[in-house]
């Protein structure tokens, strides 16, 4: 199950020496990471550890101060909007607060981007949207507005919206942190199924149960650095670093 990085298949996303400073404060302090095709990487760590900044750098929502990012072997010019737009067509994102467009129906939320980007015609986009909505159990909500949906439903729509672009990978930035406890499960179930189907995922989360069960690798970050990376069994079972143990003792 662990997707090892073999020399024959370059990592889907490769990061070297990533640095991000906010007004002199180093949110990311030299991060190296490779994410293989089909891999589920779960990023954990205390708040302020840089984990959100890390995945936001992966699709250019934060402009790295320094470092290199490659998507499928092609370097991204981190100052070029066009390069990022191209990368973002391949790397979707799901946000903590869902960020659905409130003035559009569920269907339009999903269909708009693929049409704009030329990924699909209007008819194709709609067909894909309905099929994906059916899979997450929300086909009957296609004509609803986001405000009429629960948090869990909105987040499932947000996942479908990302999927509709047919991305190679999806980034999840604390996708269940804003949800009522009773709706967390329905969102995690959708993510679990995506993982099973082989979607490449980078997930920042506090859901340790999900990390343990679904992750191929768990990456523990603290103070803008990667403290350790390993299989869930390694990181949760026998962490190598005292800092990791300390963090896990605190939250588990």
């Amino acid at each position, binding site marked *: 199950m662990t997707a090892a990085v073999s020399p024959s298949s370059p990592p889907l996303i490769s990061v070297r020496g990533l640095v991000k400073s906010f007004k002199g404060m180093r949110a990311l302090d030299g991060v190296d990471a490779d994410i293989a095709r089909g891999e589920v990487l779960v990023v954990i760590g205390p708040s302020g550890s840089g984990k959100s900044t890390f995945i936001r750098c992966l*699709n*250019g*929502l934060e402009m790295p101060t320094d470092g290199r990012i490659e998507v499928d072997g092609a370097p991204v010019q981190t100052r070029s909007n066009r390069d*990022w*737009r*191209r990368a*973002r*067509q391949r790397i*979707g*994102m799901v*946000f903590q*607060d869902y*960020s*659905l*467009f*409130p*003035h*559009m*129906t569920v269907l339009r939320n999903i269909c*708009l*981007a693929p049409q*704009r*980007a030329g990924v699909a015609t209007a008819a194709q986009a709609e067909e894909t949207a309905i099929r994906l909505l059916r899979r997450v159990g929300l086909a009957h909500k296609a004509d609803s*507005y986001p*405000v*009429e949906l629960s948090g869990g439903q909105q987040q499932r729509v947000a996942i479908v*919206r*990302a999927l509709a*672009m047919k991305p190679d990978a999806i980034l999840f930035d604390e996708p269940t942190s804003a949800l009522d406890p009773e709706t967390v499960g329905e969102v995690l179930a959708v993510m679990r199924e995506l993982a099973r189907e082989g979607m490449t995922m980078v997930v920042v989360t506090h859901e340790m149960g999900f990390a343990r069960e679904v992750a191929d690798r768990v990456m523990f970050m603290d103070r803008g650095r990667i403290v350790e990376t390993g299989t869930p069994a390694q990181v949760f079972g026998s962490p190598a670093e005292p800092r990791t143990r300390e963090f896990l003792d605190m939250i588990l």
Partner: protein
Amino acid sequence: MTYDFQFGYIVDTMPALLDGLLITIEVSVISIAISVVIGIVGAAIRLFEIPVLSQVVGGYVHFIRSTPLLPQIYFVFYGFSGLGLQLSTFWSGVLALSLWGGAYNIENVRGGFLAVSKGLREAAGSLAFRPIHYLWLVALPLGVRISLPTMLNTAVSVLKNSAYLQAIGLAELTFVAMDRVALDFRILEMFAAIGVLYLGIVLILSLFVRRLEGVLQRPFRTS
């Protein structure tokens, strides 16, 4: 001595007043439309912080808001023709009012854009939207909804300020009324008449904007 209010005088002058009202409505509607376009384009330039243009827009807004309208009207009417741009009285008036209302609308619309959550802009970005698509499909419908009340204020001000255009000889409603007052001294009749007419068109304008607001609010109503 009590004033002898002659209602019949209003009736007699009504055709002339309605001619003036028509000019007022024409100059106002065109100016409001142009000022909305200026507002949207200017606010977009500021939103995306387009170099140079953004500073130009900022300077323009500052200049218009820091100087009285009347000299602005004179400047357009006399100054522009001095610069070789020959405009009729009507179009000078339209230009002056549009530039004035446009500056206020830039701030109005910009406020609306800034009130659209940063998260939606990021979501649009992460879906590979171009900036123009974000503007047109997200920022504009959501931002305009927020700034509609202040834009209505500006529109009403443009309409009322069209009265200043009598200074360059445009025969709008106030001009016509003042003209009659100078001829016949029926001061109260004339001001009562134009008061009612101004109130009426402002009311119509407000009702129109309220309807628009209703349309833009529809997705946000839970039922």
